[in-house]
């Protein structure tokens, strides 16, 4: 600031411009710093407070728990950075699982074909969400709340109509089940540690999302459409295309989680995923995403999910009443929103 008034007066040497910002200042600017610190605190806390948490089997449990939330949280974080919400993300998980379950067990469709059909359905529902939001200009909160209820209704009524029950049974008897399970439900033993394939998916997706966000044109556009839609449009960013793509990404992540749950447990309830959409949003917010869009990170959302997974299992290990989880979740959310708000004010204060 102080240098502005004499910018034209003082010729600047090239060397001066090479000075780098300090490492600490660089770190503090990252959206995920708060979540990383919180994750570390919670890790240390449960490691000392319970015996089971730090064991190989304990770690396998909380990592797997984190993974399923993490995959969704990363996708939801991208969508939130793009300035939108998806309240139908939780029921989408149920819809994709149920589609495969019903097609394969009751209609005897080839398992891989059923998986593919479910993938296409998820992509179409995501595209529909996105198209409705960009073409009507309505808040995505309302549009996807509508989709949420529609899917919830279809999940329950549709499943009952075909199977006569509210869940899909006998899925493990479907031909090809064990092949597909290798992709979606397998695990490998490393000593006492069980690495679930869902954890691998989680890590891969977090890495891919981070790459897209920070190093591609699409990532630049995601930040721009969430940060200031009008400015983005004025400089030629394809706003509609970017937003529809984000809704499709979220739906496809829900499809993946649907598959992971289905092949892990070999059953799926019609009520699967209802109420989970808020947990995804909370994980993303705890990871540094602003509710108003334009700011956040995929790694942060993954850390948010890790915090949730560790707490979920840590409370079990500590043999507390697991209703405390909800109270904890609320405190984390409020804390994160306050921190994020402060960050935003710092970034925008000098208009």
């Amino acid at each position: 600031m102080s240098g502005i008034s004499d910018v034209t007066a003082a010729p600047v040497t090239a060397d001066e411009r090479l000075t780098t910002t300090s490492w600490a200042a660089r770190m503090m600017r990252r959206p995920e710093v708060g979540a990383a610190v919180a994750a570390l605190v919670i890790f240390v806390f449960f490691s000392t407070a319970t015996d089971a948490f730090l064991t190989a089997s304990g770690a396998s449990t909380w990592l797997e728990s984190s993974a399923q939330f993490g995959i969704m949280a990363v996708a939801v974080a991208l969508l939130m950075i793009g300035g939108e919400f998806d309240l139908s993300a939780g029921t989408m998980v149920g819809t994709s699982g149920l589609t495969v379950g019903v097609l394969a067990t009751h209609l005897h469709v080839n398992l891989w074909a059923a998986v593919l059909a479910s993938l296409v359905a998820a992509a179409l529902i995501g595209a529909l969400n996105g198209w409705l939001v960009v073409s009507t200009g309505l808040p995505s909160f309302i549009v996807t709340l509508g989709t949420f209820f529609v899917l919830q209704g279809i999940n329950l009524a549709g499943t009952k109509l075909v199977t006569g029950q509210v869940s899909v049974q006998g899925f493990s008897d479907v031909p090809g089940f064990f092949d597909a399970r290798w992709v979606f439900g397998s695990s490998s033993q490393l000593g006492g540690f069980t690495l679930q394939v869902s954890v691998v998916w989680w890590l891969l997706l977090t890495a891919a999302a981070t790459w897209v966000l920070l190093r591609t044109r699409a990532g630049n556009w995601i930040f721009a459409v969430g940060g200031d839609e009008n400015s983005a449009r004025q400089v030629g960013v394809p706003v509609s295309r970017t937003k529809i793509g984000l809704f499709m990404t979220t739906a496809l992540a829900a499809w993946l989680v649907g598959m992971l749950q289905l092949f892990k447990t070999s059953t799926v309830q019609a009520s699967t995923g209802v109420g989970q959409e808020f947990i995804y949003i909370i994980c993303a917010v705890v990871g540094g995403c602003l509710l108003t869009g334009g700011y956040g990170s995929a790694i942060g959302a993954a850390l948010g999910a890790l915090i949730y997974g560790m707490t979920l299992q840590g409370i079990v290990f500590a043999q507390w009443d697991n209703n405390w989880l909800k109270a904890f979740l609320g405190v984390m959310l409020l804390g994160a929103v306050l921190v994020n708000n402060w960050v935003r004010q710092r970034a925008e204060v000098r208009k």
Partner: protein
Amino acid sequence: MTGTEDNPSEPVISEAVVSEPVVSGPAAEAPKLPKAHECIIEVQNLGKSYGSIIALRDVSTTVNAGEVTCILGDNGAGKSTLIKVLAGAHEHSEGVFKVDGIERRMSSPRAALALGIATVYQDLAVVPLMPIWRNFFLGSEPTKGVGPLRRLDVAGMKRITRDELLKMGVDLRDVDQPIGTLSGGERQSVAIARAVYFGARVLILDEPTAALGVRQAGVVLRYIAQARDRGLGVVFITHNPHHAYPIGDRFLVLNRGRSLGESAKKDIGIDHLTKLMAGGAELDALAHELRRT
């Protein structure tokens, strides 16, 4: 005021722009900058009417390379209409609009941009939370690598941003900071530097000093001088004669959609300019009315 459309329920224009391949570097197709003081834009008896409403009539002026043409006028004087015609957002309905001596009818801002006419609107079209270097290239990001490894040329983007800003006389230690943390004047300079880098020969600045304090306005006037000294033609729209007079080479005063005349700097003093702009007689009447009795 937003760029191509002042009507927010009309996003069609911008989406159409989007589908075209976006300029991915300094516009190679833009014509070259002529020598200093040579004419780039010339308008004669320009008029624009919207249905039966005549928003602008009989406006004549020129924009020369390395000179600043100031367009002054009170609210509703027709400044916005004139910018829209010059920027290609609206077609003129009367008169002659020449670029490089060739008569033109421009149907879109993109057509104007292809001729090297760039407009920096008041809202600057920047995303406050994004780093300066990302804002600089937003919508026209250079990439390297192929297939799934196609990625932003981050080092190049940062270097170009730093260099281009330095050419404007702005030295930013850190182009990684969110653009929202810059002062209004600095942000204005980023928007100007961006337009220049992407091939502007004529820079249309819509009230760049309107929302700024005295000191910040001074900063922006320096950037305008920088752009002028680099040989660009500048169209500076303002309602403040005290900002226009020190930097302008010619002055066009508009009132209620009509030109009150165009003068070169040597032919007009600031007092006369101020009086002309405020509508001379009206100001005297006001002074009389407000006088203590």
